[in-house]
């Protein structure tokens, strides 16, 4: 089998891996120290951004945008610039950033310091979701404190002339704040309502200053990429999807868990890692990248590899790498209704198609499960979903539409059966 934990989690096997002692003894902060001592030749900002680009690292928060390219958008300016980490993990099915915050907080801190240096951002904020206040937040605060104690952060760090100050921030429960401009609004102390783009954060970000927002896993991958070189990182994975990713595998399997594996492994190998199907049931469907990605029937995903291209070709997306496994016997109407309830509850209320449409989607699905569905409801659901998709400020609207479109496309019979049989599920 393919080796687990080769990049982000490569140093979390010993005792208290979250302590700075453990991190230092596994080679942690070497990259940062090396930058501090040779910031002009070996580790110029241009060379760091170039290395990140060459590594092929793509944003692990769901959209998969090339990280090096994103960093290169930051303008040359004398203004204050910011690097912001999106630790507002809340895409349904996704729980790997939580493990990074818990077990490898220093990799994130080092990654943010390197990112800040490369983009000329001397201040960073790590936006942690509010619900992590007891479990993850004290740990990342402690890690930050340790890094300051050793003089690895602050002003004129180790006499290098480099400044980098980092702060942890705590959200307060709003899925939408995972959208990067909503996150910036929230960081400014406002309601988390996404901004219209352009201007993009690189030009108008936090407090109107140039800002780059990256996901926790993305930033935690950086120290090793710079230390071992981009070729090393891209030697994992496939040509178009290089590197490793942490798959959060949940649902009807024997060993739910976070598995860091090279991109491009086959779905069946990933399923083996997760201990196979629970109770030896057969595979019905998989949501491959968090609830915002389109569902794929078992017979389709069984032939897929877990990377950007293969899942896109199959009609879905890699998303956050949150693989939700669904066994035979599950009611697809009830599952879709739960997903739609979530988007209805969590929409920010800003754009009409999304605010009104998500309510329509949920209420129609609710009446179908109550036995009051009408035969043209399926057409209506798809019509409403299509009118939301592409017509909103941010991707939340699309995320609410895709599950509806894909569930009905692949499991039309189940929906039709329930409408015709007054709420009775074909799966029951």
């Amino acid at each position: 089998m393919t080796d687990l934990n080769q990049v982000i989690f490569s140093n979390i096997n010993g005792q208290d891996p979250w302590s700075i002692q453990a991190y230092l003894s596994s080679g942690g902060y070497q990259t940062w120290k090396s930058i501090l001592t040779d910031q002009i030749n070996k580790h110029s900002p241009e060379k760091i951004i170039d290395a990140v680009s060459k590594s092929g690292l793509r944003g692990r928060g769901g959209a998969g945008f090339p990280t090096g390219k994103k960093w290169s958008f930051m303008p040359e300016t004398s203004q204050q610039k910011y690097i912001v980490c999106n630790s507002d993990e809340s895409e349904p099915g996704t729980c790997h950033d939580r493990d990074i915050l818990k077990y490898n907080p220093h990799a994130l801190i080092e990654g943010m310091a390197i990112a800040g240096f490369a983009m000329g951002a001397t201040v960073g904020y790590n936006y942690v979701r509010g619900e992590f206040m007891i479990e993850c937040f004290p740990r990342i605060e402690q890690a930050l404190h340790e890094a300051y104690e050793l003089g690895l952060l602050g002003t004129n760090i180790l006499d290098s002339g480099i400044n980098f100050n980092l702060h942890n921030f705590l959200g307060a429960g709003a899925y939408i704040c995972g959208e990067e401009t909503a996150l910036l609004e929230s960081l400014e102390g406002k309601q988390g309502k996404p901004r219209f783009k352009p201007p993009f954060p690189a030009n108008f970000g936090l407090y109107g200053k140039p800002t780059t927002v990256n996901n926790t896993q993305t930033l935690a991958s950086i120290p090793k990429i710079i230390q071992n070189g981009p070729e090393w990182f891209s030697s994992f994975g496939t040509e178009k999807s290089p590197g490793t990713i942490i798959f959060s595998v949940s649902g009807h399997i024997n060993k739910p868990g976070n598995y860091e594996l090279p991109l491009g492994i086959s779905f069946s190998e990933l399923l083996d890692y997760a201990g196979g199907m629970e109770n030896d049931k057969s595979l019905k469907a998989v949501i491959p990248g968090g609830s915002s990605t389109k569902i794929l029937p078992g017979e389709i995903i069984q032939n897929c590899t877990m990377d950007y291209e293969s899942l896109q070709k199959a009609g879905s997306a890699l998303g956050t790498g949150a693989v939700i496994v669904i066994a035979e016997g599950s009611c697809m109407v009830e599952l879709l209704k739960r997903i739609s309830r979530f988007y209805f509850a969590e929409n920010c209320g800003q754009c009409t198609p999304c605010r009104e449409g998500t309510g329509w989607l949920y209420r129609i699905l609710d009446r179908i499960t109550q036995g009051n569905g009408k035969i043209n409801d399926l057409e209506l659901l798809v019509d409403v979903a299509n009118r939301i998709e592409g017509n909103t400020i941010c991707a939340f609207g699309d995320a609410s539409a895709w599950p509806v479109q894909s569930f009905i496309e692949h499991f039309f019979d189940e929906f039709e059966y329930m409408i015709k049989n007054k709420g009775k599920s074909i799966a029951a």
Partner: protein
Amino acid sequence: MLNSKIKDEIDHWIHKFPEGKQRSAILSSLHAVQHHNRGYLTTELMNDVADYLDIPKIQVFEVATFYSMFQTKPVGQHEIAVCTNISCMLRGSDNILQHIEKRLNIKAGQSTIDGKIFLKNEEECLAACTGAPMMMLDHHYIENLDIKTVDQILNDLEKNND
């Protein structure tokens, strides 16, 4: 009026932000005052936060009503939030929630009559999908739940008289 402990906590947050950007400390200020007020906010407390941060009251109120972790009505002292999102649903979270509702004789979104437990209506995924089903008790994550564990937790809560 905010006591000095809360003010210190708010000051700690204000210092993370640039001069004049104390609005950024609203979320943390509300967490602090809510925590010291047994889990919910009052209009008076929100006004106090606005005064202390020297910002318009509406800016605090609109944040308090937007984010799901802030309660603007009295709720029970201990908060239980059962995740019922997709990954937890696949592993039986609905049974867990129903069991708690039945045992406490309340529905999700309500508090027990003795004011001890608030059963939050949790819509968001709580990012512990590999430990499903799970719930939070006063923001502590408790994973791989079954009915027996839930009963034990509720027994302990009922015995506890803090």
